[in-house]
Structure formats: structure tokens, C-alpha cells
């Protein structure tokens, strides 16, 4: 096992055990800044961890970032690892991030679907869903990005357990989703929620389940534009941005629709790059560039959140 986050290889893909070991190393190296919180257990009894980056205070306004809710999107978990290290490196060095962390907390869930992720390493690299069993069906798993209580069951999800977009039997049926719901509700002071997927180079905001524009559409659109501009400035990666339903397709029960409806105004979802047309098999050589460019967009959103309290 790697003994330090300095010798951890950020330019390759890692197993769940390696990532969980990384979390422990990071916490051990930065005990004043980083802590590890277990927010639940998966269907297959794996712990679900969130990293908390905090410089103190009590229940400060917070920013949530998650990666890897769709397990086969490996560049997202790998980017999450890179973000975690980046936060520890830049705190105290980069004035913008330092300012954010002096006023807000950041929560980072790197492996949002641990069962699915483990399954992509052990059995099926193309696995997307959770691993929960559905009664009266041979098919396994629920799409955790259709399982949220926001337009649940509407068009843009499937009632067929064999579908990749199977929504589950009821909202929050997946413990991986329910754990986040509990955490967000209990915290009560999350101001930005960013859920990261791959691939197709998009930055999206609510809604996905309805064509009704979000009340904050104008601000979200401007912020998305700024974030995408920052992202593209590094390597020229082209992103589109807009609401989920107008930019890609109708999707009901999705993460950021729920968070937005809970009052988290700055709710966004990313689709990271595939500039080489490898889809979910983005070569490991692109992990660091992908994370670097995404970080610029994340910083744009986080700074805006800090500077526009609500």
C-alpha cells in the first residue's frame, strides 16, 4: 500500500480499497483540515465515506461535491481523489480556496456508489447502477441518478429493473441515495451541491424532470457560462451548458433536481470529458488534465457561492 498521498499515483485508476486507503492517508496527514465521515452503509454493507474539509466553526455553510454515483464513470472517482489532494495542497497557498475554506466547509464524496464501483473492478467494468436486488426480477441494481424524490417516476426514467435507467420501486429506495438525503437534511446549511458524472462535456443545472425553468435559471446560466469558460481556458475542452432537460434529455428523479428543490440554489451536475472518444474508458493519461480543468470550474462555482450568500 502507498504510504503517503505524495507518492499516490493520481494518473492511474484505483480500486475501492486503494481509494479508501487514500482517504485515511489524507486524514492522517492533515488532521486539522480533513476528517472522514461515514454517512451510511451500502446495500452490500460497505461503508460510505465523505471527506470533510473544514477550518473550524459550527455547521458552517457548505459545498457538497460527489463523484462516482455511476460506477463505471471511472474518471470521476479518479478526479475526486485529485480534488481531495488539491484542496489540501492549495489551502493556505491559493487565496481564493483559502478564503472559501475560512468561511465554508467542503464535503467530498469520492465513491458515491461503492458496491457498483467494486463490481466494475471485480466482475463487470461496464456496471452503472447500484447492486441492490429487486424482488421478482433477475436484474440487479437501480440507477441512483433516477432514484431521488424529484419528479420520481415521470418520463426520463424506467420502471423496468433490467433497464440502465431503472428508477427503483420508490424514491430513496437505494441506501446510497438515502444516506446523502439524510446527510443533507441533517446538515441543513449546504449552499452548493455539485454532482459529477462522465462523459459528454456538459455542465447542467435543474430541471431535468420538467421543462419549467428553474426560478434561478438566469443566475445559474450565467454562472455555468463562467464556469465553463474557466474550464476551457486550460486545455480548450469544449463544454455545453444549460438545464438538463433542454441540453440533453428529460430525466426524472435526478440528484440535483432534488437538491435544488430542497433550497440548494447552486445545484449543478457535470459530465466530464471524453475528448478522445473513449467514452467510459477514458485513458488514465487523461485523468489529471480532466481533474485540473474541472477544478477551475468548481472553483468558479465555489467562489460564486461564497460571494453570493443566500
Amino acid at each position, binding site marked *: 500500500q502507498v504510504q503517503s498521498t505524495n507518492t499516490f*499515483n493520481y494518473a492511474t485508476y484505483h480500486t475501492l480499497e486503494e481509494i479508501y486507503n487514500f482517504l485515511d492517508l489524507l486524514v492522517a496527514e492533515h488532521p486539522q483540515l480533513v476528517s472522514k465521515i461515514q454517512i451510511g452503509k451500502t446495500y452490500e454493507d460497505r461503508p460510505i465515506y465523505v471527506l470533510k474539509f473544514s477550518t473550524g466553526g459550527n455547521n458552517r455553510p457548505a459545498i457538497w461535491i460527489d463523484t462516482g454515483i455511476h460506477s463505471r464513470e471511472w474518471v470521476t472517482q479518479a478526479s475526486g481523489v485529485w480534488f481531495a489532494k488539491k484542496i489540501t495542497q492549495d489551502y493556505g497557498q491559493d487565496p481564493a480556496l483559502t478564503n472559501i475554506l475560512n468561511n465554508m466547509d467542503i464535503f467530498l464524496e469520492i465513491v458515491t456508489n461503492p458496491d457498483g464501483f467494486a463490481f466494475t473492478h471485480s466482475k463487470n*467494468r461496464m456496471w452503472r447502477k447500484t447492486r441492490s436486488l429487486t424482488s421478482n426480477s433477475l436484474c440487479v441494481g437501480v440507477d441512483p441518478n433516477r432514484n431521488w424524490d424529484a419528479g420520481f417516476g415521470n418520463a426520463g426514467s424506467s420502471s423496468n429493473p433490467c433497464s*440502465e435507467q431503472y428508477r427503483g420501486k420508490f424514491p430513496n429506495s437505494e441506501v446510497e441515495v438515502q444516506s446523502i438525503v439524510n446527510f443533507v437534511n441533517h446538515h441543513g446549511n449546504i449552499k452548493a451541491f455539485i454532482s459529477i458524472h462522465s462523459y*459528454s462535456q456538459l455542465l447542467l443545472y435543474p430541471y431535468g424532470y420538467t421543462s419549467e425553468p428553474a426560478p434561478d435559471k438566469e443566475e445559474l446560466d450565467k454562472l455555468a457560462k463562467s464556469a465553463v469558460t474557466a474550464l476551457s481556458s486550460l486545455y480548450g475542452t469544449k463544454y455545453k451548458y444549460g438545464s438538463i432537460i433542454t441540453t440533453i434529455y428529460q430525466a426524472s428523479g435526478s440528484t440535483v433536481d432534488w437538491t435544488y428543490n430542497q433550497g440548494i440554489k447552486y445545484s449543478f451536475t457535470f459530465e466530464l470529458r471524453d475528448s478522445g472518444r473513449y467514452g467510459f*474508458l477514458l485513458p488514465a493519461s487523461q485523468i489529471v488534465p480532466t481533474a485540473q480543468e474541472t477544478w477551475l470550474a468548481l472553483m468558479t462555482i465555489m467562489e460564486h457561492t461564497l460571494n453570493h450568500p443566500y
Partner: protein
Amino acid sequence: HEDFVGHQVLRIFAADEAQVQKVKELEDLQHLQLDFWKGPTWPGSPIDIRVPFHSLQAVKIFLEAQDIRYEIMIKDLQSLLDEEQEQMFAFRA
């Protein structure tokens, strides 16, 4: 491990709404076991589908019969997966 030998990922370009609808019809054909990496949305927006070896001929014939343009995005999925694994092992070593 699930074996993806012979699986291809096709990138499909639907020229108009009618062609988008035709590709959507493929989604309902369960026996083909298609995996939509990027689903059908708007005309001109690429659609990526992982097609198992046993369905390749049927899908390609369907697309050609409908005059829907496509290209092979990944020729053999398993070879990419093997490369990915080799690289991970190499880094560990």
C-alpha cells in the same frame, strides 16, 4: 470477469427527428442487449451504443437500412479493457 470480446461501440449520427426516433426504437429491443452510453437526444447529437458481438450484424443492418450514418467508435472493447488493466498492474508493480 464479464467478457466484452467483440463488443463494439458505435457512434451514430441521426440526421433528423425521424432518424432519432428510429434509434430510440432500438432501445426497446431487449434481446439485442444494447447499452446506450449516450442516448438519443437531438438530431446531429452523437449517440454512442455498446453493441454485443451477437447483435452487431443486426444493428448495423438496421442502421444501414434506415440510411442512418454511423461509425465504429471502439472496435473491440475488450482490448481497451485489457490495456486499462495492464496499465493498472504496471503502476502497482
